[in-house]
């Protein structure tokens, strides 16, 4: 199974021809007086199996050789950055050749084809690289080309007894070693680095000398032994992962019976150390249901709880000792102190907790004791209320409830000096007596009140009005025609008012002259026409061109005609004059809406 770095290339076409020309498949650096070669002990490895990468440098004139630099390899772990090193010297025909081999332990972690990149080494200040090597990592039990399931000669598994525990429930993880007949396990040593994030871990002490049993796996007889057992307690729900369990194993391989040299040299087989890793395990930890109407201590298992007071009669300033004792089988290490509802006038000191955990057998059992020191501050009869504690039973999947009865105690007045000092210092804190200033509790914000925003908007409305006014004044002062049109109605009303004031004493001619001026002036101002030199006919023609409605047009004509004719043939009485003034006033108002 020995493979060298160049052998992969030898599989393919033209390159294989070139490689055939290279003696022994070595990478020869023709210009140099040395040879560099990288090889792997196996190129088909099971997940969790160890194999070796060897880098050999041989030559006759090497002076300074650095340590090879092995780059990170995808899917494969490097067991140690420091390689094991062996050297040899040979003299052939007077030529001395030095050979140094660096051996790195690698472990396969993922399934698939992986490439070990070129290893870099510095020889006499010059950097050289080996060729890359391809290896295949296969799963245990994977089918081979002949249809048989393949298993390595020795492998490790971590087996758990519960796949879907709840937080706090104990599960047992057994480290199980499998090895084929003919392999003898001489020693084992767990390595550091087994990550059990999300679990509380306790090693069980029930295995003194592992006993191997025979099992048939995929039609092949294996021997198996449980090496170590751990009790694991999940501390949270969700998917939790137990990482690869690393183990160093010393093995002795028995030599084949037909090996003619085995017995001759007195060898009972080769002995070596290998590093194995189990595959990681994912455990789906279920949510624990909430405990209804009960105090939680995070207790899971078959646990009993009791609560006692050391004494029920103390003096002020003395301490009461409240002990809560939890014992049985379950998550003793994870049980929390219960948060009791104590009476108000108690001073609580930092509680103490102690535990005695038994790790024999397959379950963790023992006792955990919480001791709380309570110092009453005032005399009287008091009661620590009864409590109902929830303990989750993973067997039934339900809560069991432990009822702790109420504890009563009496506090006698005492001459405790510290207490007396405390009250004397606090005597300056006196209650307020007499008439208090009362307020209605309100949480309504000023920004949520309507009137605030109304007050906020008002100045902006005023600002808009002022801007409009300013623009109007500006236009009136700069645009004469606009100013005439703008003041037309006011001027007409002034004239009509004057006509109304003289209606009782003036002659009809004068009154109708003013009425004519009011209407004629209003229309010329609106149409931006000159007042002088314009006849009534011209004005009526302008009116017809405008958007004034027919009814108003005829009224204008009628009124202007009446004003013109009345000067020559006065008729009617004062009432008619007044009604004409009102009619004209109304007409101007109607026109004002249209123009």
């Amino acid at each position, binding site marked *: 199974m020995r493979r060298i770095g160049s052998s992969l290339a030898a599989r393919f076409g033209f390159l294989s021809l070139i490689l055939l020309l290279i003696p022994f498949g070595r990478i020869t650096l023709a210009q140099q007086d040395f040879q560099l070669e990288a090889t792997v002990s196996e190129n088909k490895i099971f997940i969790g199996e160890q194999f070796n990468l060897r880098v050999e440098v041989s030559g006759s004139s090497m002076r300074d050789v650095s340590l090879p630099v092995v780059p990170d390899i995808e899917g494969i772990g490097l067991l140690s950055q420091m390689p094991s090193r062996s050297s040899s010297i040979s003299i052939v025909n007077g030529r001395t050749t030095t050979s140094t081999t660096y051996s790195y332990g690698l472990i396969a972690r993922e399934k698939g084809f992986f490439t070990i990149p070129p290893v870099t080494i510095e020889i006499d200040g010059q950097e050289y690289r080996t060729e890359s090597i391809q290896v295949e990592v296969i799963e245990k039990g994977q089918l081979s080309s002949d249809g048989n399931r393949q298993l390595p000669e020795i492998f490790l598994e971590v087996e758990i007894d519960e796949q879907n525990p709840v937080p706090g429930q104990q599960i047992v993880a057994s480290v199980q070693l499998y090895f084929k007949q003919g392999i003898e396990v001489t020693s084992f040593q767990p390595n550091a680095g087994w990550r059990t994030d999300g679990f509380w871990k306790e090693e069980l002490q029930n295995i003194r000398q592992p006993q191997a049993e025979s099992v048939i796996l995929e039609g092949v007889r294996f021997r198996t032994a449980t090496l170590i057992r751990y009790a694991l307690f999940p501390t949270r729900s969700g998917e939790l992962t137990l990482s690869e369990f690393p183990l160093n194993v010393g093995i002795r391989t028995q030599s084949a019976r037909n090996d003619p040299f085995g017995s001759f040299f007195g060898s009972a087989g080769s002995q070596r150390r290998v590093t194995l890793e189990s595959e990681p395990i994912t455990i789906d930890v279920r949510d624990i249901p909430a405990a209804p109407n009960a105090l939680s201590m995070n207790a899971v298992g078959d646990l009993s709880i009791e609560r006692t007071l050391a004494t029920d009669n103390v003096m002020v300033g003395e301490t009461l000792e409240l002990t809560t004792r939890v014992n049985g089988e379950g998550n003793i290490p994870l049980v929390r102190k219960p948060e009791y509802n104590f009476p*108000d006038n108690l001073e609580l000191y930092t509680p103490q907790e102690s535990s005695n955990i038994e790790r024999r057998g397959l379950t963790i059992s023992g006792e955990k004791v919480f001791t709380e020191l309570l110092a009453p*501050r005032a005399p009287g009869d008091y009661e620590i209320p009864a409590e109902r504690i929830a303990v989750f039973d993973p067997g039934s999947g339900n809560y069991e409830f432990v009822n702790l009865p109420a504890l009563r105690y009496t506090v006698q007045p005492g001459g405790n000096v510290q207490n007396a000092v405390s009250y004397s*210092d606090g005597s300056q804190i006196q*209650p*307020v007596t007499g008439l*208090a200033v*009362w307020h209605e509790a309100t949480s309504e914000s000023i920004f949520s009140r309507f009137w605030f925003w109304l007050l906020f908007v008002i*100045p902006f409305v*005023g600002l808009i009005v002022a801007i409009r006014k300013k623009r109007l004044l500006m236009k009136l002062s700069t645009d004469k025609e606009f100013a005439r049109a703008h003041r037309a109605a006011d001027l007409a009303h002034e004239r009509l008012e004057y006509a109304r004031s003289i209606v009782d004493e003036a002659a009809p001619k004068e009154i109708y002259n003013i009425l004519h001026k009011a209407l004629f002036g209003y229309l010329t101002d609106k149409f931006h026409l000159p007042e002088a030199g314009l006849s009534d006919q011209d004005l009526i023609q302008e009116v017809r061109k405008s958007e004034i409605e027919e009814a108003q047009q005829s009224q204008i004509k009628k009124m202007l005609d009446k004003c013109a004719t009345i000067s020559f043939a006065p008729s009617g009485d004062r009432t008619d004059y007044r009604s004409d003034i009102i009619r004209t006033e109304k007409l101007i108002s109607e026109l004002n809406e249209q123009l």
Partner: protein
Amino acid sequence: MKRYIFLIAVFCLLVPGSKAFAQQTLFDEANSLLSEGNYQQAINMFQSIADDGHESGALWQNLGVAYTRLDSLGKAKYYFLKAEKFSETEQQAETALQFINNQFPRQSAVLPALPWIRFINFLSENIGLQAIAFAALFFLYLGIASKIGAWFRFDFKKTLNYVSYGSIIFSVVLLICSIVIQYQQNRYSTGVMIDREAPVYQRPEDNSTVISTAYEGYKMQVDKTESENQQSWKYIRLENGMYGWIRDGHIMTF
């Protein structure tokens, strides 16, 4: 008619007066219980006044005194801090707080607040949100009136323009301050630790990493917005600047 108006006026004056009289009577009775040493009964009576929607500095001060007598110093501190907000009991509450704070066996390190937070707190505590909002309105009116005046009174145009711009800028600053104060009040409240000690967690879970421990009397800032979605947990900032989650049963907030 005049007689009816007089009767309605008398009724309107007497009804609120009688209510005030009722809470004052209860308050006096609770004070008597307090002086007789019936602290728990006094607390219950003071609490019933507060539950009816009335509050006063004297009420909170006396609740603090009652809890001090019962040695529930965390609760006492909570009520003294509330009493401190009222001008009529501010001085007494400060004295009481000084005494209470010396009684706690553990004192928290206090990280100084950032300058702008100190400024906002100063405005909030010494002037008040309402006063600042009204001042903002006043200067807004003054600013806009001055601007309108500048448009129509050419003889004072320059002066009025100065007054206008100054007032409007000041009004905007005050309005921003009042909005920030309102935001702070809506988002944060003050909490006081009333239990002896409680863990402060990194996340709102009992299994989460404990990042600190809060002890009785520790004052903290409670982030109401952050805590909204977590039932029975509060997201807090301790005075030492650490943030974390605490079970809401351990603290009282206002």
